[in-house]
């Protein structure tokens, strides 16, 4: 029996050329983007919700504050904005697809590991980019925020990369909760975490205790980076980058393991 097993195993070891594997990744990413572009009903609210929030609270309600406050709010609401495509675009779609059997089907197929997640990640990054651009457009036209082109670019880059830890968090929640329960659970994380890390109201206005525990939240660290991008934070940045990277990697590993084992 042992020898028979090994002969079949060696036959199976005939692998797939690297170019074809790469092709599979590209096809998967392309399909993932296509399907959401053709069904804007899913991603549009995810992008417009934080933009509307910024318009109401960051622009209209905060008109009397100075130029620094306006930039501060732009950065913080930008972070709030990119969390949404990460958590919802990634987490909810994953939860729904686990429910509908698509993920089971993909797991049964020889899809290269991670191709499906990579496609979703690219989509979330694109959505995050759109959110930041929307906010920038509103800030520059309505709020008369002054921003150097380099700062605007830095904020865009921060947003597009900063969505990744929240993709990981959304993915992890998506592997824990199936189907319709996911949006509620994600809101339960999204909104309090945004408040607690000072995205709606600057941290110094929050109670001292909440200020002290703010570094627990990944959104706090991304906020530090976003503030630096618009020239409002001159402190060291590496530590925040490392925290976010570690947070993203840890959750992504946990989630990937759950997906591989349980689907």
């Amino acid at each position: 029996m042992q020898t028979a097993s090994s002969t079949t195993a060696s036959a199976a070891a005939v692998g797939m050329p690297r170019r074809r594997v790469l092709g599979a990744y590209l096809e998967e990413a392309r399909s993932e983007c296509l399907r959401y572009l053709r069904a804007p009903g899913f991603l549009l609210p995810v992008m417009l919700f934080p933009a509307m929030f910024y318009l109401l609270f960051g622009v209209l309600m905060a008109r009397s504050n100075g130029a620094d406050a306006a930039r501060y709010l732009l950065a913080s609401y930008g972070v709030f904005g990119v969390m949404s495509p990460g958590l919802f675009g990634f987490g909810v779609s994953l939860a729904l697809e686990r429910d509908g059997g698509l993920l089971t089907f993909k797991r049964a197929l020889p899809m290269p590991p991670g191709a499906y997640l990579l496609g979703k990640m690219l989509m979330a990054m694109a959505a995050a980019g759109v959110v930041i651009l929307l906010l920038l457009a509103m800030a520059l036209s309505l709020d008369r925020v002054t921003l150097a082109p380099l700062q605007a670019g830095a904020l865009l880059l921060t947003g597009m990369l900063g969505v990744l830890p929240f993709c990981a968090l959304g993915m992890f929640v998506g592997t824990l909760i199936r189907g319709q329960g996911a949006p509620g659970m994600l809101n339960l994380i999204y909104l309090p975490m945004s408040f607690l890390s000072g995205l709606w109201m600057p941290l110094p206005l929050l109670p001292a205790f909440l200020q002290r525990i703010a570094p627990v939240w990944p959104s706090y660290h991304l906020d530090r980076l976003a503030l630096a991008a618009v020239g409002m934070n001159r402190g060291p940045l590496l530590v925040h980058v490392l925290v976010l990277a570690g947070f993203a990697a840890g959750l992504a590993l946990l989630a990937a393991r759950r997906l591989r084992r349980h689907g």
Partner: protein
Amino acid sequence: MNDTTVARLAAAVKRYGPLTALDGVDLAVRRGELLALLGPNGAGKSTSVSLLLGLIRPDTGRAELFGLDPQRIEARRRIGVMLQSANLPPTLRVCELLRLTMSYYPNPRGYDETAVLAGIADLLLRPYGKLSGGQQRRVQFALALCGRPELLFLDEPTVGMDIDARQKLWAAMRALVAEGCAVVLTTHYLEEADALAQRVVVLGQGRVLSEGSVDDLRKRVALTRIRCVSDLDATAIAAWPNVASAMREDGYLRIATAQAEAVVRRLLDADSALGELEVQRAGLAEAFTELTRDAAEAADADQREAA
């Protein structure tokens, strides 16, 4: 195991909480054969398939695909899959789904060849979500065979198909088997197993109840049922030659036999007042019902004994 085995379960046990879905199942799929997996709902068909696909892991025992852990991608590159329910992205066109799935395999079947074989050449430009249920099943079948698999898993493939589409799918399955592709087919339709399968495994209560060719299964109950109203003694008839069983039930005399003509002749000779005579051939369906009912009764009896 010999080296013609492409997939197997060895003493596989899978529990979901208190429910034992599979209770020590041994199953081997041989190269190039069409194996039908039959059984009532909850018998363990889907669990068996999920184990072989690596979607779940056995609690004890083993599942192997080409001698490898089914979760290894190298093993899965040699299989094709059609699951019972899969909501594929509705906004993608059929051609896009096909190209995507083909990209997963090292040496896929040609695009046009796949479309023709699965009978979806006319659907390629349509969005998947706009197709009828039967058309969607045909597309799923195309996705299953596009990778030129050595082993194809088809879980209830013809549910929701009209007769014409079903016939076409059967023809395509025969063509695949002729190419040397092994197929594991789970189905509710016994005529499907009858028409296609070289070997039939009947599952019930998470165990293998019977395994053999379709003819073997049929022979197990290649009996004809006779029902009539008569005063003849059932126990005496049971002792007649060629009578498998005889009993009285609801006022009817019920006889099972492999030689209906001889038994009927003797019955009519013995009782001139005999009436309401009915003779019915037991089909595969009855064989199957019998088999699974016996298992259910046995399980009940076990439980009573245990209690």
